[in-house]
């Protein structure tokens, strides 16, 4: 991806990428959980990108979540969790 996501330092649990919206409460809850778990992760607020960057990121994101909905969390490029399914995220990151 040419667009650089924001990196949050923390415990290395592999690659954790969160596609989010700055206005979305579910995205906020997901970020809060990641912060609480103190894991290192990257996130992008897709609504704050320019239109061309947005299109590029959406294309990437739709490969793992065709509906293009938020939040979309991608763990180690294979596990995808759509929506603020906090228990599922916790389980995936603590196991």
């Amino acid at each position: 991806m040419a667009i650089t996501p924001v990196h949050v330092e923390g415990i290395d649990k592999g690659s954790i990428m969160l596609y989010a919206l700055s206005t979305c409460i579910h995205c906020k809850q997901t970020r809060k959980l990641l912060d609480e778990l103190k894991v290192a992760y990257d996130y992008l607020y897709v609504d704050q990108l320019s239109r061309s960057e947005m299109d590029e990121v959406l294309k990437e994101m739709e490969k793992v979540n065709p509906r293009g909905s938020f939040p979309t969390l991608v763990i180690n490029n294979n596990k995808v969790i759509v929506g603020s399914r906090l228990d599922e995220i916790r389980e995936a990151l603590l196991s």
Partner: protein
Amino acid sequence: MTPDVSENLLDKRHNELIQEAKKSGYNLNPDTVFTRGLVEGLLINANRYGYESCPCRLSLGDKESDLDIICPCDYRDDDLSEYGACFCGLYVSDTIASENLPAPVVPERRPLASERMKKSSSSVPAGGLPFPVYRCKVCGYLCARNNPPEKCPICKAEKERFEIFLR
């Protein structure tokens, strides 16, 4: 989130939405912190785009293509009937509201962009209506949608008081 939404404005819009919902038989999510987060998102979107599009969906800033996600969105009532909450959780069913339950995770039902383009013509298919028409047996209010509303927006009768009027 951002400093451009004042507490006063947030209080005002939140109260307006609670009153409007009550009047028409809907419930706003009783979780105040959660709901204020959503109302803040609506106000940010109103500033950004000129309309209150869903804070949990990506707006393209083009009103015509965002019309279906301007709050209350086209998908609210189907989500309320099926899951007890709308996609973002701003509106909830009577049960969730009265028992103060957390809003469930609601999957996105908005069609993909490619499908939305195709659906733009609202022609009636041969042999039937695109939606059944429900009739409130109390006041005669008619609505064409997949399920009757939780409460009649006119006379506040419960959804059990609705009958199928046209199919």
